[in-house]
């Protein structure tokens, strides 16, 4: 029987988690923009830039297009933001200990990540502009191609728990706990070294989910279809979308770090958080370099890539997990 104090503790933790996610995302967004600018021989924006953009959008005129479905048009940014906020406190920052009634189920995480993408589909379709519709159809195609390898790669660590010895569990905290210790010589006991192919598949899927090239920005390709699903959005509603998109830097990197890079490595409290954030930042930097050094592929290429190579990687690892070699 939980007391009132327990609930208060949980709420505090949730707010702390969202705060952490927000500030890390802010920093990561700045690193992303600054680093990509520097890699392009430019100077890049100052540190307050990501947040100034969002504040400005909230101060602009409110607007709903005439052809839009008004209910869905206003609902979809809220869906996106709530989905990503739920994700950002469901994914623990590297600690096996995380209070709360939810079991941090990987299946739920998967569902919410799809919901986050679906919010953009709804936004595109509801806004009533041809560009929004094309963007939405591209987004659907991206969901169809990405989610299958993503789902398999997401579940591989939890299936592998049985081999490590702690028994099958869908809880993300169990996955983090299972990665403590040493694999061989100095290599830590990360699932990255156990299942490298699956981690590549997951990495590419998350890269795409966080709008990074080569595949990620197909649905919002600026030169082809303006801003894709967000073409007709402006002002505060766009601000909510931008805020939701800011959290991607935390959510998707944290997911990868928790599942395949050992989270906080089982250290004591402030240290594990620090190690976790550094790992996340490294992932952001690697993503940025890939983003900067590649062209945007076509949607057919994305299909081919994810449903052949990535799926093969994921399925191969799945067979390894199930058969055990």
């Amino acid at each position: 029987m939980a007391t009132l104090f327990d609930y208060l503790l949980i709420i505090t933790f949730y707010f702390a988690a969202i705060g952490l996610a927000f500030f890390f995302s802010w920093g990561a967004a700045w690193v992303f923009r600054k680093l990509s600018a520097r890699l392009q021989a430019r100077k890049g924006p100052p540190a307050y830039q990501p947040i100034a953009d969002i504040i400005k959008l909230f101060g602009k005129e409110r607007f709903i297009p005439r052809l839009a479905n008004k209910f869905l048009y206003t609902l979809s940014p809220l869906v996106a933001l709530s989905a990503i906020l739920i994700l950002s406190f469901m994914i623990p920052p590297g600690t096996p200990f995380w209070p709360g009634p939810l079991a941090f189920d990987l299946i739920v995480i998967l569902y919410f990540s799809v919901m986050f993408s679906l919010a953009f589909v709804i936004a595109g379709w509801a806004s009533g502009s041809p560009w929004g519709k094309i963007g939405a159809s591209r987004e659907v195609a991206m969901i169809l191609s990405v989610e299958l390898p993503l789902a398999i790669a997401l579940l591989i660590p939890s299936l592998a728990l049985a081999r490590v010895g702690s028994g099958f569990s869908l809880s993300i905290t169990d996955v983090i706990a299972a990665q403590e210790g040493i694999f061989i010589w100095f290599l830590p006991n990360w699932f990255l070294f156990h299942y490298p192919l699956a981690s590549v598949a997951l990495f590419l899927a998350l890269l795409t989910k966080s709008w990074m090239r080569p595949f990620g920005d197909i649905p919002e390709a600026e030169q082809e279809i303006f801003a894709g699903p967000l073409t007709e959005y402006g002002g505060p509603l766009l601000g909510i979308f931008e805020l939701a998109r800011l959290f991607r830097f935390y959510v998707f990197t944290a997911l990868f770090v928790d599942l395949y890079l050992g989270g906080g490595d089982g250290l004591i409290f402030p240290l594990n958080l620090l190690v976790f954030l550094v790992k996340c930042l490294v992932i952001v930097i690697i993503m940025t370099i890939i983003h900067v050094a590649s062209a945007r592929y076509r949607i057919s290429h994305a299909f081919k890539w994810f449903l052949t190579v990535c799926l093969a990687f994921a399925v191969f690892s799945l067979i390894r997990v199930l058969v055990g070699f």
Partner: protein
Amino acid sequence: MTRKKKTEKKTIPMQIDEVTAPEYVIPLGPFHPALLEGEYFKLKVEGEKVLEVDLKLGYNYRGIMKLAESRSYHQNMYLFERVCGICSAAHTTAYSTTVEMLGGIELPDRARYIRTLIAELERIHSHLLWAGVGMELIGFKTLFMLIWRDREHVLDVLEAISGNRQHYAMNTIGGVRKDIEKEAIPKIEEKLKVLHKATETATKAVLEDGGIRARTKGIGTLDKEIAKQISVVGPVARAAGIKIDVRKDDPYAAYDEIPFDVITANDGDIFSMALVRLGELVESVKISQYCLDKLKTTGGPIQAEVKEIPPGEAVGRVEAPRGELMYYLVSNGTNTPERARVRTPSYLNDYALLFMLPGESLADVPITVASIDPCMACTDRICTVVNQDMRTQKTSTIQELFKNSR
């Protein structure tokens, strides 16, 4: 409550009907991020596949040829320079060549070399610009940035020579307006070396990168036969394997004595167009170097004496960065031309889009449109190309095009 639900149910299926309908029309333009200039493509698409294309121009129609009839020959120099921002030197070269033909004016040697140098530097700037914008349109923003960083060097050279980054205003009737001093030449040579290196890296990156290859190879292919029928010019024709170049075929300025290769490719797709342009960059650097070497040794005046322009008519041709550029002038003996006619390369090349676009995916439309390096500012003076049914119209001769365009 019930009412609200009803309206929602009404509106949502309507939109789904619209989208799931097999074909629908997408307006590309008149103002679209990929195009920059006002032009309007009406694309009939099925999912992502383009079925039919209509092209509507004229948003940029300024009546330049009409204006030219009310201004003097010298004033027209600056008016024709502003037909197009990117190939301004080509326009003035063509115009002044035509006026010099009318007046029977011989260019001094030094003026010829300076004119050639400016034309080639402009070609470098234009092709680098194209390469950068092309990279940006396939989403490779980094190469766009890096190519444009190197492009700044050409602009520095042009700014140092002429005093402006674009619109050099260097040509005048019977010569050039500004001389290049001896002290400035080593600096220009240094910059040319930087450019040469940058070109090589750009070529290497384009050849090597899988992404660029995947996005450009086999896309927007223009058949050689069709290319001949619709008489495309410049890099578009050369990419399809047609070896035409006004600089070789009908030399003007100093091109008759300069050795250079005409770069061609065979496939006619965007990749080969890129290869042709990147190859031409190297040639242009070579030609500029040749001109600089000659400028070191040749002295003399930079302007010939200009007397009155006698009545008559003349046609001048120039190889602009986008292809053959033609000027036709009629003089009536006064200081204003009786009639001026400009035929720009994009005027012919735009028509090729109607053959290149159908069958491609929507994602490839921007790069395909950009691949011919369209210059609406050049083209938009009198032309409207409309193709109502792409599929049934199999052969379109040049006569039909002219008939349509008048």
